[in-house]
C-alpha cells in the first residue's frame, strides 16, 4: 500500500514548558501520498507536536527523521527549506500588504538584486489560479474576508514545492464550497506524493479527506489508525476519554422554548448599516436562544456587531427590556445589559499578556470604572469559581491568557461576560476552532444560561450546532434577512435550503 519508509518519522518526542509536560513520548509517521489527520482535544498537544516538527519548539527528548535522516530544525525557515510547509490555525499574514506580497513574502523573485514586481504578480496569479482563487494579486489582503485570507495562507504554503504540508485547522473559517475547493487541492497534492498532516475539529472533514490518523490525549499518544478502520464513535471516545457523557448530555440540550407572550428583552427594528447589512427586525425573549444562520459574509457577524455597538448602526432602533436605548459604542451596549464575544478571538477578545484572572474580571472592572477596583479577594473568588465552573485549564488564575489553548481562551471570554450577568448574550462563533470536549461544554453552557433566563443570540458556521441550540433561527443571505424559523421548522435541511436559495425556490 504505502512505501515501506515514512517520509517523516517523529519518535518518542517529549516537550515540556516549565513544569507542564506538553508532549510525552509521542510518535508520528507521515507517508508520502497520504493525508494524515492529527486528532485530539485542545491541549492534547497537537499544536506543540506540529511546532516541534517545524522547529518552532526545541524537543526535550526524541528524534525527528526526514527521509530516514535525523534532523533538528532551528526554526520554521529551516523546516521549510527541507520541504516542510505549515499553515497555522489563525491567519498569520500581513493584512496591510497585497495578496501577491503575502504570497511571496521573503521569497520574492529578484532581478539584479531588486524585487521583480511584475514577476511577483505573475507568479502570484499562477499560484492563485492553481487554487482557483479569484483574487486580484495587487489588492490588499485585509480587504478580503477571513476565509479568503486563509486560502491565501494555504496558497502561500503550496507556493514552495513542499514535500510535507502541515495544515493546522485550515478549514475553521471556510464554508462548505471553500472546504471542497481546499480538499481538491489537498487531493491533488496528495496524488503528487506530498505527505499532508491535517488538523481539524470537524470530524466529517477528517473522514472525508484523511487516509490515516494519529490520536493524542493529554500530551500522550493514544494510537495510530487507518481512517477506514476507526468509527466516529471510537475516534471521539479515543480523543475525549471518559468525558464522553458530556456529548451524550448534549443530545437533549434544547431549552424549553420561551413563552411567546413574554415581552422581548432585546428588540431591534429596522437595524442596519449601509454596506454591512440591510435593515433587520429581531426580537429575543428572556430564556430564548435565537440563532443567526448564514454563510460567511451573509451579514450574521455584521448584525451581531451592530447589536453590541461594535460598529455603529446608521438606521433602526434598539430597545432593551422595553426601553429604547441608543447604542453608540460597546460601552453603552454593556450599560444596557448586552454582552458580546467576537468572532475573531485573538484580535478582539483575548488580552493575551494579562492573566486569566485579569481577563475574567475585565468587563466587570471596566463597568465599575478604574476608581472602584474589584477587591483582590473578590477577584480571586470569581476567578476560582469560574475556572472551576467552566473547567478552564490550566486551572491557574495567574497564567497568562495567551498561553492557554483556543478553547480555554474562549471559556475565559465567556466567564468575562457571565460574571456581569448580562440580559442579552451575543456569541459570535464561540465554538470556532475548538475541540469536541470544549465545544460540548460551551454548548451546554449556552443552554444552561438560556434556562436561567438570559436572552441569547448565537452564531455559528456549523448549522447543526445552530439548529440544535436555537429556539428560533434567523436566516441571512447576502447581507439581508431571508426568513425566521421557529419551533418544528427549525431543522438543518430547511435552513440549508433557505441559505442556498434565499427561500425563492422553497416554500
Amino acid at each position: 500500500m504505502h512505501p515501506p519508509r515514512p517520509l517523516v518519522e517523529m519518535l518518542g518526542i517529549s516537550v515540556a514548558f516549565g513544569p507542564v509536560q506538553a508532549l510525552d513520548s509521542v510518535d508520528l509517521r507521515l507517508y508520502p501520498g497520504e493525508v494524515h489527520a492529527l486528532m485530539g482535544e485542545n491541549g492534547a498537544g497537537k499544536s506543540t507536536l506540529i511546532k516541534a516538527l517545524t522547529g518552532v519548539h526545541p524537543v526535550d527528548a526524541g528524534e525527528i527523521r526526514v527521509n530516514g535522516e535525523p534532523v533538528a530544525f532551528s526554526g520554521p525557515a529551516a523546516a521549510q527549506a527541507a520541504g516542510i510547509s505549515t499553515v497555522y490555525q489563525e491567519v498569520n499574514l500581513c493584512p496591510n500588504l497585497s495578496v501577491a506580497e503575502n504570497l511571496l513574502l521573503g521569497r520574492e523573485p529578484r532581478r539584479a538584486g531588486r524585487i521583480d514586481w511584475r514577476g511577483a504578480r505573475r507568479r502570484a496569479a499562477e499560484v492563485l489560479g492553481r487554487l482557483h482563487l479569484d483574487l486580484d494579486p495587487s489588492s490588499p489582503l485585509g480587504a478580503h474576508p477571513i476565509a479568503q485570507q486563509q486560502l491565501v495562507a494555504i496558497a502561500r504554503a503550496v507556493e514552495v514545492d513542499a514535500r510535507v504540508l502541515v495544515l493546522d485547522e485550515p478549514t475553521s473559517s471556510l464554508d462548505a464550497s471553500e472546504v471542497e475547493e481546499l480538499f481538491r487541492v489537498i487531493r491533488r497534492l496528495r496524488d503528487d506524493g506530498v505527505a499532508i498532516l491535517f488538523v481539524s475539529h470537524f470530524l466529517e472533514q477528517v473522514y472525508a479527506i484523511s487516509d490515516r490518523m494519529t490520536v493524542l490525549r493529554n500530551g500522550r499518544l493514544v494510537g495510530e489508525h487507518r481512517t477506514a478502520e476507526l468509527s466516529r464513535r471510537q475516534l471521539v471516545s479515543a480523543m475525549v476519554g471518559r468525558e464522553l457523557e458530556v456529548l451524550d448530555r448534549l443530545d437533549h440540550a434544547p431549552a424549553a422554548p420561551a413563552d411567546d407572550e413574554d415581552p422581548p428583552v432585546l428588540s431591534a427594528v429596522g437595524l442596519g448599516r449601509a454596506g454591512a447589512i440591510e435593515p433587520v427586525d429581531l426580537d429575543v425573549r428572556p430564556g430564548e436562544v435565537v440563532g443567526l444562520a448564514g454563510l460567511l459574509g451573509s451579514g450574521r457577524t455584521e448584525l451581531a456587531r451592530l447589536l453590541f455597538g461594535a460598529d455603529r448602526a446608521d438606521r433602526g432602533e434598539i430597545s432593551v427590556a422595553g426601553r429604547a436605548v441608543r447604542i453608540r459604542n460597546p460601552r453603552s451596549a454593556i450599560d444596557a445589559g448586552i454582552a458580546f464575544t467576537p468572532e475573531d478571538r485573538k484580535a478582539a477578545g483575548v488580552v493575551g499578556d494579562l492573566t486569566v484572572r485579569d481577563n475574567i474580571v475585565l468587563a466587570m472592572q471596566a463597568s465599575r470604572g478604574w476608581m472602584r477596583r474589584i477587591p483582590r479577594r473578590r477577584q480571586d473568588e470569581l476567578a476560582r469559581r469560574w475556572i472551576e465552573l467552566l473547567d478552564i485549564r490550566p486551572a491557574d488564575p495567574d497564567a497568562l491568557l495567551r498561553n492557554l489553548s483556543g478553547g480555554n481562551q474562549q471559556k475565559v471570554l465567556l466567564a468575562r461576560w457571565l460574571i456581569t450577568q448580562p440580559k442579552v448574550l451575543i456569541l459570535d462563533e464561540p465554538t470556532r476552532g475548538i475541540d469536541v470536549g470544549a465545544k460540548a461544554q460551551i454548548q451546554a453552557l449556552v443552554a444552561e444560561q438560556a434556562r436561567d433566563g438570559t436572552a441569547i443570540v448565537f452564531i455559528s458556521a456549523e448549522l447543526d450546532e445552530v439548529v440544535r441550540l436555537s429556539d428560533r433561527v434567523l436566516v441571512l443571505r447576502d447581507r439581508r434577512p431571508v426568513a425566521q424559523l421557529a419551533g418544528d421548522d427549525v431543522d438543518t435541511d430547511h435552513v440549508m435550503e433557505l441559505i442556498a436559495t434565499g427561500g425563492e425556490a422553497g416554500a
Partner: protein
Amino acid sequence: MRELLRKPIWPLVALLLLNLAVTPSFFAVRVQDGRLYGSLVDILHNGAPLALTALGMTLVIATRGIDLSVGAVVAIAGAVACSWIAASPDPASPGAALTGIVLALGLAVVLGAWNGFLVARLGIQPIIATLVLMTAGRGLAQLVTDGQIVTVNNDTFSGISGSALFTVPVTVVVAAAVYALVALVTRRTALGTLVEAVGINPEASRLAGVRSRSIVWTVYVFSALCAAVAGLMISANVHAADANNAGLWLELDAILAVVIGGTSLAGGRYSIAGTLLGALTIQALTTTIYSVGIPPEVSLVFKAVVVILVFLAQAPKVRALLARRRRGGSGPPPAAPTTPAAPAPAAETTGSGR
C-alpha cells in the same frame, strides 16, 4: 522592592562602583546648611526631572503611545512661570511664584489634553500627534519669553530646586512622592490593569467596555504634568527660563529610561520601578562623565557605548548565548512557549496594532 531587584540594577551598580574606584569619597554624604550634599545626592537631585518625565512617559508607552512633546513642555512650563514672575508687580513675592507655578501646571494640563485629543479622539498616531507639540511647543516657549532668557530672583520659586525638607532636597522629595503616588494609585485602583489592557489589545479592551479614550487622555495629561513639574525644577535650579535649551532632548532620555527599565515600546506591561532605575542609571552616567573626567568631546560616545552595552546585555539572544556558554554549550535554553524565537517581540505586536 522585590520588583526592583528583578530589574537590571547592575548597570547602575557598575557605574557607581566605577566612580568609587576613581573617587574614593564618592559615596560620602554630608549635611551642610540643613541640606544633604554629596555625589549620590546630586544624582538623585539632578535626576529628579528626568525621573518624573520618564514616569509620565511610562504610562503613555504602556497604552501603546509615546510622548515626544515632554521636552517642549519642560521649556513651556519654565517660560510661563518665569515670565509671569518677572512681569508681576513684585517679582520677589511668594504670591507671584505660586501663581506662576499654578499657571504653568494649568497650561500643562491643557497641552496634555491637546495630545490626548489628537491621539484618543482623532486617532492620530501618537508619534505624529506629539511631534506637533514637540516642534511647536518650543516656539511657543520662545514666544512667551520673547526669545530672551528670562531670569528671576524669587526665593519661593528657587526653593523648588534649592530648598530641603528634613535635609532631603525638595526635588527628590517631590519626585519620590509622585512615584509613590503613582505606584499606589495604579496598584490600589484598576488604572494599572486597564492601562495595560488598552496597551496589549485596544480592540479587545474596547469590546470589553473599557473606556480606553479617557484612559489614553488621562495618561497624556499626566505625562504633560510630570514634564511641567520637571520644567519648574530645571528653571528654578538656574533661576531662569531658557526656551531654547531647557529640556532639550529630554524626551529621548525619558524614552531611554523607560526602555532600560524593561517596559516594551509595543505597549502593555510596564514597570514603574524599572523606569526609576532607568532614569537613575542615565543620571549616574551623566555624573560619571564629569566625575571620571571623560573629555567633553567624547562624552556622547562614552554614553552611547554604555547604553549599547546595557541593551546588548538585556537582549534575549545575547542572554541565551551567554547562558549557553556558561553551561558549556549544551543545547539552547527552553524557548518561550509562544514566540518563535522572535528577536523583537515588539515588532509582532505593533504590526497588528495600527
